[in-house]
């Protein structure tokens, strides 16, 4: 018996749609489940059994998080470091990209290799730690943004984009007597918005999501230098340490003494949502840009 091509196609499409729905569920469910727990009454959440919808709706978990002094500091630090790193990083990377995109630049080859090498040669954790110590960056807010402004991959992506711009732009600016820096800043940069959006997204995601810098370089001044992701990590490892107790069902709201009317499960879920939402609100709007950016980076990198 032979199935007609049309029917075979329809079967294929149906199976594929089911598969895609499965993918959507796998990707979204853990997040939506956490969202539901963060919106559910904290003591009720301990009973378990919450899936996609809160059982007893409340906003008090968010209330108690934003009353917590440490978490407010963490939030402020995360925002500050992300803004500083993104603005500074975009400036340095695009200026470097501009110089490397000028075909006539005499040291172009040497400088490109000089920068590309940093992608492969890294000194490692311990020598870096000692360097930061000598620069007194340990337990200093500047450790969050100063060392990480340059990114060789970002420079290559920006340079490749700039090489695709018409030469006449730069030449026209030069005939008008504009300096190189003005040409870069006022002529080239404004038309690079797509690639700047991509690289800016990468830099800000990397900074917003980083907890390790706090852990290694700033944890002894946690009360002033902590970040949101670090606090989430701390809550997470606390609840892991309690894993044994959790299984015997003997979980009391002991880990959350600093919070009012809440439980570790609820606190964890709520911080997770607060830490995730800013990025999740931004990235879909930049999708068409970063999809191109990945392509450029992989071909020319």
């Amino acid at each position, binding site marked *: 018996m032979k199935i007609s*091509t049309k029917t075979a*196609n329809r079967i*294929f*499409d149906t199976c594929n*749609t089911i*598969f*895609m729905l499965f*993918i*959507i569920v*796998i*990707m979204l*469910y*853990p*997040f939506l*489940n*956490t969202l539901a727990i963060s919106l559910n009454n904290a003591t009720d959440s301990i009973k*378990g059994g919450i899936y996609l919808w809160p059982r007893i709706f409340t906003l008090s978990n968010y209330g108690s998080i934003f009353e917590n002094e440490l978490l407010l500091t963490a939030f402020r630090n995360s925002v500050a470091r992300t803004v500083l790193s993104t603005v500074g990083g975009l400036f*340095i990377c695009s*200026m*470097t990209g*501009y*110089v490397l995109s*000028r075909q006539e630049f*005499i040291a172009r080859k040497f*400088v490109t290799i*000089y920068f590309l090498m*940093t992608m*492969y040669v*890294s*000194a*490692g*954790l*311990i*020598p*870096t730690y*000692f*360097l930061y110590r000598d620069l007194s960056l340990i337990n200093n807010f500047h450790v969050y943004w100063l*060392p990480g402004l*340059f990114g060789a991959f970002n420079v290559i992506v920006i340079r490749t984009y700039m090489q695709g711009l018409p030469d006449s732009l730069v030449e026209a600016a030069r005939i008008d007597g504009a*300096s*190189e*820096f003005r040409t870069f800043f006022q002529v080239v940069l404004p038309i690079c918005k797509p690639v700047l959006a991509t690289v800016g997204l990468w830099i800000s995601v990397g900074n917003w*999501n*980083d*907890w390790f810098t706090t852990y*290694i370089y700033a944890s002894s001044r946690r009360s002033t230098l902590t970040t949101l*992701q670090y606090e*989430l990590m701390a809550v*997470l490892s606390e609840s892991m340490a309690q894993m044994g107790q*959790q299984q015997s069902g003997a979980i009391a709201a002991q880990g959350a003494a600093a919070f009012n009317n809440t439980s570790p499960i609820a606190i*964890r879920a709520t911080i*997770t949502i607060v*830490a995730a939402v800013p*990025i*999740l609100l931004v*990235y*879909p709007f930049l999708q068409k840009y970063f*999809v191109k950016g*990945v*392509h450029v980076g992989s071909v020319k990198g």
Partner: protein
Amino acid sequence: MRTRTIWSRIIQQWQLFAMIVPVMVYVFIFSYLPLGGWAMAFQRYRPQREVQEWVGFEQFEFLFGDASFFRVMRNTLGMSVISLILGFTCAIFLALMINEIRQMKFKRVVQTISYMPHFLSWVIAAALISDFLSSRGILNTVLMQLGIIDAPIIFRANPDYFWWLIGWSNVWKSVGWNTIIYLAAMTGIDPALYESAELDGAGRFSRIWHITLPGIKSTILVLVIMNMGWILNAGFEVQWLLSNDLTINTAETIDLFVIRYGLNQRNYSLATAFGMFKTVVSIILLTAANFVSKRVAKEGLM
């Protein structure tokens, strides 16, 4: 004569130099200067006199003779290989299936959602994953409802599961993101090929197998080869966040070893020696990978 023209061109391009030299100095400080710290790998700390003493290759000899070196290498390679195989097959499969979606809107929605985990931090991902796998989590609930298991499996407590836990965690986080490059390569395939295949009566599967897959073959090859170069970089964040005392034996990677010995036990020299070993081997692997991928990619074009 020649040197004079070079100098005059440098002077002529002083503005470009003024823009790039500060960046080069910055990169020198933060990327090249710490390489001097590799000297620590050939030294030993003398607490009595508070000085570093030159000891040659003693640290390396100790490292290669230590049982934990082999354990750490085994874990690193094991997790890398599992993540590599799972990562590639899943991403290629998902890309092929996304490419077959006909409604453009649905396709976009699937893509956007599949990128989401890539943008979450490993801390958030670890929190979500450990909830998903917990004894009362959704996976155990579903498996018990279906009658596949009688009692919940404690995935996080079993050292034998750890490499696979990392492999699948990596897949969840990056499979959507990794489809981007394949989907971009698929747009480059000539539509006429599909049309003539359809006229010949080729079904969907045979079109995927005979046209789409060969169309992205060179992309796959280059990516596989380049990823082999990163095989010692199994990462540390996800292992750090998902491991516990029960699983540390199969969880410890090179980077975790460096953190534990270097920062927690303050054995700076040994940790630096291992970090240096990793970087040097990685550079050799990457250079080899680069060389191979250039040859293979050229052949793929023929």
